[in-house]
């Protein structure tokens, strides 16, 4: 596939130039031309008023798909505790499997039979479980070896994993080895009705826009999903499933975990557990603005969040960051204060039940996703809010 300008149709109006995120369109002899910077993102296709920009299919595009059936979920554990994202993946995995008329299996490395049973209750039809000592702590190579072997043997058509420090680290190795397409940090997954391909939606270009990604010719189709993006399925106490023991033969590890160090985080940064989050962005103007947000958070018993812009400015430490490159959160109430609402941030908090946006700029995109919007100056609104909340709570 490549992108081409039909020179007969092109009027040289230049309207396509702006549309290209890669600066790959130039005007040469009064006609648009696609340069080698083109990444084939198709952003320009719909922009041309003359329809002169075209997508040209090549013979090599019509490759055979690999085979495969079944949806797999990699269920992650740390020190014997299954990560919540695993149950969420079983939720979406089951939906996809139903559409495809197939089942959903979980793969678990480490932990015990009790945890494997829990996966069945959360919707897994089958659990591949390896209890070998070598996989109790996370090392990339043995995890990648084991999962690759299982995939090659059983050929699932879809493999999902959490976009966590573990999943994001070893799943790419599996994809590289199997020559499988892997899409990171998906925010929505669907099955295309016609082709049965997996449609993988994720933020692109620094999270300013969404993109749909496909793996049209290869199997399995692999994707990672952020915690708290998908909803859990139904928990069934009496569910029955198949438990398959997996042996850890012929696997190696050139890395070794010497120590696991837990860092105690106080409530103010425990974002993923928080019921209420007060978050600030560039519009807070600096540490002084964040001091106000601390006070609001304190009055609400809330955790403090921040956008990447505020963290990059050095106003708040990284551990407060919410968004695609920070944490994904889903509190009952999310206060977005002085946050413009770039997709990069939004994907990290859009599953909040109630979003309240406070921003000086009425055009800020954050208002597009808010339940309640207040256009106004933070330094005026927040102190009032603190006062009223204290009153309402009888403080």
């Amino acid at each position, binding site marked *: 596939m490549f992108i081409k300008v039909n020179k007969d149709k092109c009027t040289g109006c230049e309207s396509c130039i702006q549309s290209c995120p890669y600066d790959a369109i130039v005007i040469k002899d009064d006609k648009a031309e696609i340069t080698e910077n083109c990444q084939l993102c198709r952003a320009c296709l719909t922009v041309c008023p003359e329809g002169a920009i075209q997508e040209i299919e090549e013979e090599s595009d019509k490759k055979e798909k690999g085979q495969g059936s079944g949806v797999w979920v990699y269920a992650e554990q740390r020190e014997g505790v299954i990560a919540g994202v695993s149950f969420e993946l079983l939720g979406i995995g089951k939906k996809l499997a139903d559409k495809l008329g197939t089942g959903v299996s979980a793969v678990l490395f480490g932990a015990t039979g009790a945890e494997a049973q829990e996966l069945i209750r959360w919707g897994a039809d089958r659990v591949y479980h390896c209890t070998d000592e070598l996989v109790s*702590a996370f090392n990339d190579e043995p995890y990648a070896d084991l999962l690759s072997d299982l995939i090659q043997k059983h050929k699932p058509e879809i493999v999902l994993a959490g976009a966590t420090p573990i999943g994001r680290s070893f799943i790419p190795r599996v994809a590289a080895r199997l020559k499988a397409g892997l899409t990171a940090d998906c925010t929505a997954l669907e099955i295309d009705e016609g082709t049965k391909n997996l449609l993988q939606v994720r933020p692109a270009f620094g999270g300013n826009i969404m993109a749909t990604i496909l793996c049209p010719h290869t199997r399995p189709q692999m994707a990672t999903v952020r915690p708290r993006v998908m909803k859990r399925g139904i928990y069934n106490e009496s569910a029955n499933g198949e438990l398959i023991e997996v042996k850890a033969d012929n696997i190696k590890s050139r890395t070794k975990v010497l*120590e696991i160090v837990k860092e105690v985080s106080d409530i103010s940064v425990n974002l993923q557990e928080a019921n209420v989050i007060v978050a600030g962005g560039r519009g807070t103007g600096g540490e002084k603005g964040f001091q106000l947000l601390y006070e609001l958070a304190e009055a609400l018993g809330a955790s403090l969040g921040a956008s990447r812009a505020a963290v990059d400015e050095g106003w708040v430490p990284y551990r407060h960051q919410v968004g695609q490159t920070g944490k994904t959160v889903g509190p009952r109430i999310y206060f977005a204060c002085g946050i413009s609402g770039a997709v990069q941030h939004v994907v990290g908090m859009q599953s909040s039940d109630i979003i309240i946006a406070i921003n000086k700029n009425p055009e800020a995109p954050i208002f597009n*996703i808010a339940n309640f919007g207040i256009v106004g100056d933070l330094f005026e609104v927040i102190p009032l809010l603190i006062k009223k909340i204290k009153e309402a709570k009888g403080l």
Partner: protein
Amino acid sequence: MRIIVCIKQVPDTAEVRINPETNTLIRDGVPSIINPYDTHAIEAGLQLREKTGGTVTVVTMGPPQAETALREAISMGADEGVLLTDRAFAGSDTWATAYTLAKAIGHIGADVILCGKQAIDGDTAQVGPEIAEFLDIPHVSYIRKIDNVGDGRIVVQRLMDDGYDVVESSLPVLLTVVRELNVPRMPSLKGKMAAKKAVIRKLSAADIGAEEESLGLKGSPTQVRNIFAPEVRKDRKMLEGTAEEKVEALIKELAGLKCL
């Protein structure tokens, strides 16, 4: 020690905005920068060289203008820059990018390979681990500290959600780094002079012995189907009036929803 740092030239995405009417990106005057995470990888490479001796080679894949990113890295103190540039690389997803970089790294030779944890334009964090897989070497992601290096081993701290793991690896190894690791240095005057004079080595697909089938769009299992702007919420309520009235209204709404 032969140290390779992989870098990427990216649009400064903090500056990229979307035009909601045409559903396209507005990138007028958006500057190209070295991916910020990669500047920490460069700094880590320079510090490692100060400790163990050796060379720091900076590698990037991209169009000819990506050369400026390499010169910037040299101005920080890197010894040389290698640019992988070839029309055949166009349209590469993470798989094809990692394949290409791994081929080049195999060609150059390295004991430690450093990458930023992810690039700010794609945010996938996939290319680093995939390079390690193609080279059949171990990797450790999200490095926040290098504790120790020597005798063919390295001990690092890997950032996790609930703290960190202390991980030992054999060499050669690939490490992806997070911002906490260090503060990237500013270019020195001497560095700037060196950057100006430096001859950037350019490698094509043929130079690195890459298979054509594995490059660019042909070698990419994933494809972008379309791009679009996020949806607007329909039940949004904008609160009106004076600041006091707006806050009043909000408190009432929240109380009504039993949120206070």
